[in-house]
């Protein structure tokens, strides 16, 4: 190297210069991005660690089978009614919103995408998707609790349905629209009626996307507290759909203020169960989503 140093035809030096300012700046910036990416994982993991630490000890068969303890019962008890209540109310909400949302999405995506009805429906769904969940609760309180004369699982289901509908409708519309135009042309070219094209070609292709939207909406609704406070509140007894109904979210809300150590522990355990439930639902939706790309 030294011999050719003054040679004009010397090859450019291609070796790394790790201590040049340019290189240092690059390393610094890369490090910052890595740190930020790591920090983004911290909330989820610290929540998980804390929940396992505080609630993990209560994970047992009893937790899933027994009813909640009273404030004067110093150990034992479970959250079975809250788990069943959450599943029941989310189930009602899904039964209402899936047919409703998917049929509306078919209209929005295919039949009258530019019609006034579709424009208004799309706009209101987008607005609704940002609706504070407490408003959904107040709404369901007004139309269900007052008219039916009391808190019930049905009212809770309706409140959750109000929250789930926009997500399901908008994702279903999006996935139906994403079915390639040439597939629809092929269907019509074969002599399909519009409904045959929809049921035999478009919906089967859009199905994984629609299911993903449904699962995400369910995952969100399962963790909602505010709408259920107004509609189902809480119960320490087994599920009775016409009466106040327990749910995981409201159980956590109630017991986290309790003076009973036993109930506090159950609140932590219920939090862990809820997070794991949401986690599983997300995994399911990702798994279904990944099957689409085949």
């Amino acid at each position, binding site marked *: 190297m030294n011999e050719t140093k003054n040679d004009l035809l010397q090859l450019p030096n291609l070796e790394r210069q790790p201590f040049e300012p340019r290189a240092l700046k690059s390393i610094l910036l890369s490090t910052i991005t890595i740190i930020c990416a790591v920090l983004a994982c911290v909330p989820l993991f610290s929540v998980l660690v804390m929940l396992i630490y505080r609630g993990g000890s209560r994970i047992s068969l009893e937790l899933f089978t027994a009813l909640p303890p009273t404030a004067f019962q110093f150990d034992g008890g479970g959250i079975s009614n809250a788990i069943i209540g959450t599943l029941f109310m989310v189930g009602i909400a899904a039964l209402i919103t899936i047919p409703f949302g998917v049929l509306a999405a078919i209209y929005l995506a295919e039949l009258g995408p*530019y019609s006034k009805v579709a424009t208004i429906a799309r706009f209101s769904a987008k607005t609704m998707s940002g609706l504070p969940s407490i408003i959904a609760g107040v709404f369901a309180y007004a139309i269900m609790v007052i008219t039916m004369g009391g808190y019930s699982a049905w009212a809770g289901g309706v409140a959750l349905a109000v929250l789930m509908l926009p997500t399901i409708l908008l994702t279903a519309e999006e996935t139906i629209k994403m079915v*390639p135009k*040439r*597939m*629809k*042309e*092929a*269907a*019509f*070219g*074969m*002599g*399909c*009626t519009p409904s*045959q094209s929809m049921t*035999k*070609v478009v919906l*089967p*292709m859009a199905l994984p996307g629609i299911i993903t939207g449904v699962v995400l909406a369910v995952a969100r609704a399962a963790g909602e507290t505010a709408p259920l406070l107004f509609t189902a509140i809480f119960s320490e007894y087994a599920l009775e759909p016409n009466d106040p109904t327990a749910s995981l979210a409201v159980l956590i809300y109630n017991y986290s203020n309790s003076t009973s150590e036993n109930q506090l522990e159950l609140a932590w355990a219920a939090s862990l169960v809820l997070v794991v439930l949401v986690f599983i639902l997300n995994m399911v939706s990702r798994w279904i989503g990944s099957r689409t790309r085949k």
Partner: protein
Amino acid sequence: MNTLLQDDIILDCRADKIFYSDFLAVRDSHVPIRKNQITGFIGPSGCGKSTVLRSINRMNDLIRGFKFFGSIQFHTMDIYNKKVDPVAVRRNIGMVFQQPNPFAMSIYENVAFGLRLNRFKGDMDNQVEKALRGGALWDEVKDKLKKSGLSLSGGQQQRLCIARAIATEPQVLLMDEPCSALDPIATRQIEELMLKLKERFTVCIVTHNMQQAQRVADQTAFFSVDLSIGGRTGYLVEMAATKELFSNPQEQLTKEYLHGDFS
């Protein structure tokens, strides 16, 4: 409107005016389609040849703002008559598109699709095989009928689409640039297939490729673009037997186009 057609004319297409919303896309084009012949539609981009082709089985109904003035007489019916069901039209006039578009289902189900739509009661396996043989694809796929139609190569996919279209025995087959997404070998296979298909069906093909028109078409319709009305309106310049059109064009515009003076 129910004038009797000349014997060998199966489709008499008179596209007086075709609009997309306010845009006049095609004017004054009379294209008679003869039975068991291949009719080629050629011309520069934007000349309306695809628009006319897609009007023949009312595929353009799916486009917003599409309006057709004129008539397309198929047997004794004008297919633009209000009483006519466009779905029924498409079941009798099949279509093959520019991009191969098999459904995301098995090869077998792709071909059986139209048969199931028509509640076909006969031997399904037999009819599927017949269609795949008709599409010159049987030997290549007979061992993998359960595989997805999308797993095939582009040329095979296009032949699958042809098999799918002919499975229901339509009378007319419309092909909208069926080879433009394919390589020369696959193109040659489709062309050979078309020559076989015309024994059983009437074929209309839009093509950008003049050699292709010369190789396969019995008669050729040349369309061009008229810029004078302040838009880009396509119209039929002339139509004749292919040999006649290419060797002895009557119109100056045709002559220039065939010599490659413009495109």
